[in-house]
């Protein structure tokens, strides 16, 4: 009797568990599945539950050589690569200084690097757009790169600093004791050991730039059309197929990184973020 009751209650717990996981799976994947349907829908009119006709006609339209999607993709990737180069060039020395060197006004400097995360970026973008308009940077690729870089830099500095802080200092000491100069020690010990964290920060900056919308919306128009802007225009124009295909293009790197992030960003580095 008792064991039968136990069995029943265990069975009930299992049903509750399975239902909860199933519901969560629907909440997570339902919206994504809906996007997939739209991306492959040739015709889909209310009140059909699924498209009346599937096909690749819109994919052909998006990827035709003269189509603006290919152009936007190239623009987006180019801007993201330049943003990464700029951010790393600035963030690596800054991160090293924050992690290893004695800094005057350290608390104040740290706060300066925390502040941009704690403030809505809309006023920043609106006024950068005005500043850029004065100097002719509005609607240029360089202008968009600078906006993306200023946004990505804060994150890059944090992660770079955490990556350097996680490197075991006694290894550097050993190299120095054996006669390696500071540069040699940095290039052969510190930098290779911090590399996974730095790669993670580069990927973060790349993704942030690839996905950035608000800054590009104000600074890039009308000449620089990145993938997010193309998606937005298609969606607002009511072309759900084009919008969904573009959204899928943006989803691939995001989800790929989500699956890989732990390879690069180990717990020991994560624990040092913001210290």
């Amino acid at each position, binding site marked *: 009797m008792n064991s039968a009751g136990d069995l029943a209650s265990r069975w009930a717990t299992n049903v509750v*568990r399975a239902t909860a*996981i199933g519901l*969560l799976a629907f909440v*997570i*994947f*339902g*919206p994504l599945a*809906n*996007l997939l349907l739209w991306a492959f829908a040739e015709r889909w009119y*209310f009140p*059909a*539950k699924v498209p009346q006709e599937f096909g690749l006609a819109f994919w052909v339209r998006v990827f035709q050589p003269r189509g603006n999607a290919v152009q936007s993709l190239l623009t987006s990737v180019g801007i993201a690569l330049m943003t990464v180069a700029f951010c790393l*060039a*600035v*963030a690596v*020395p*800054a991160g090293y200084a*924050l992690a290893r*060197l004695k*800094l005057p006004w350290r*608390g104040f400097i*740290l*706060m*300066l*690097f*925390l*502040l*941009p*995360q*704690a*403030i*809505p970026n*809309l*006023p*920043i*973008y*609106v*006024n*950068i757009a005005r500043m850029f308009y004065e100097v002719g940077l509005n609607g240029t690729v360089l202008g968009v790169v*600078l906006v993306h870089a*200023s946004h990505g*830099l804060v994150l890059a*500095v944090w992660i770079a600093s955490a990556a350097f802080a996680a490197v075991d200092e006694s290894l550097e000491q050993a190299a120095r004791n054996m006669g390696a100069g500071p540069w040699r020690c940095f290039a052969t010990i510190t930098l290779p050991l911090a590399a996974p964290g730095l790669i993670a920060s580069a990927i973060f900056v790349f993704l942030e730039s690839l*996905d950035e*919308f*608000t800054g590009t919306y104000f600074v890039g128009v009308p000449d620089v059309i990145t993938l*997010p802007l193309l*998606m*937005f225009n298609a969606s*607002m124009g009511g072309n759900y197929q084009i919008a*969904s295909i573009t*959204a899928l293009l*943006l*989803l691939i790197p*995001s*989800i790929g*990184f*989500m699956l890989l992030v732990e390879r690069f960003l180990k*717990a020991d580095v994560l624990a040092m973020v*913001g210290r």
Partner: protein
Amino acid sequence: MNRKWAGLLLISPALLVIAVFFLVPLGLSVVTSLQAKGGGWTLAHFEKSFELYTTDMIFTVAIVLLSSALIAVVAIAIAGYLTLGEHERTRNALRWLYRWPLFIPFIVTGQVMRTFLAKNGMLNHVLVGGGLIEPLAAQSMLDWRGIVIAFVWKQAPFVTLLLAGAMASLEVQHIEAARNLGAPRWRVLLGIVLPQVRGTLLVGVVLSFVTMLSVLSVPMMINPNSPTMMTVDVAYRISTHGDYAVANALCLVSLVFASLGAWVYLHHAVKRVGVA
């Protein structure tokens, strides 16, 4: 002494970028919102902002607060089960599931929800198909509910990731002692685990709060008509009227909302820096 200046030299390019692309535009925003047309200072732009957009301000704060609260609840529930759950397969499934939206950009979230929550979207088809609602009761959720759902869907995994990480690094003895004394898991979670990771939860929720305050794409795509969020109003003032004064006044009002959260966050972050 030498090393001190070396550090300053290494960090100066980053500081320069922050100054030019963050502090200067921020200053410009303050000046623009307070400057009268002929020169001199005025509060007229703020008066006009409140006159035209008070409803939207309330709408914005309500949506962002509600979303933040829901994000915290979801994050505590998922991270809590990942830490204290006893069924390993469920834990693994949960860990695999919850993080999918982690790096999906807001603009894609907007598009995804625009199709999912529409009147003929998948949500309604599933609800009708499952017999949960009548076909005639199907309604579009593309209003304030859509914005909240999009925000929680996108932002909860981020806070959960932070929170689960913090919970995993806690001492297990306390938790096991409480479990051995027969405390139910939800009480262990709320009474023992949560107080120790309060700081991490706070940082995650405040960062989400500030981020949501300045997202333009989601409200524009899901609910562009009045009442809407202040970011949409700012974009409208600029693109339709070229009215930077009122746009900046609106920006500063949302900055005041954010600064409350930001103060809490900076306070905590600096304290942690001090301890480390």
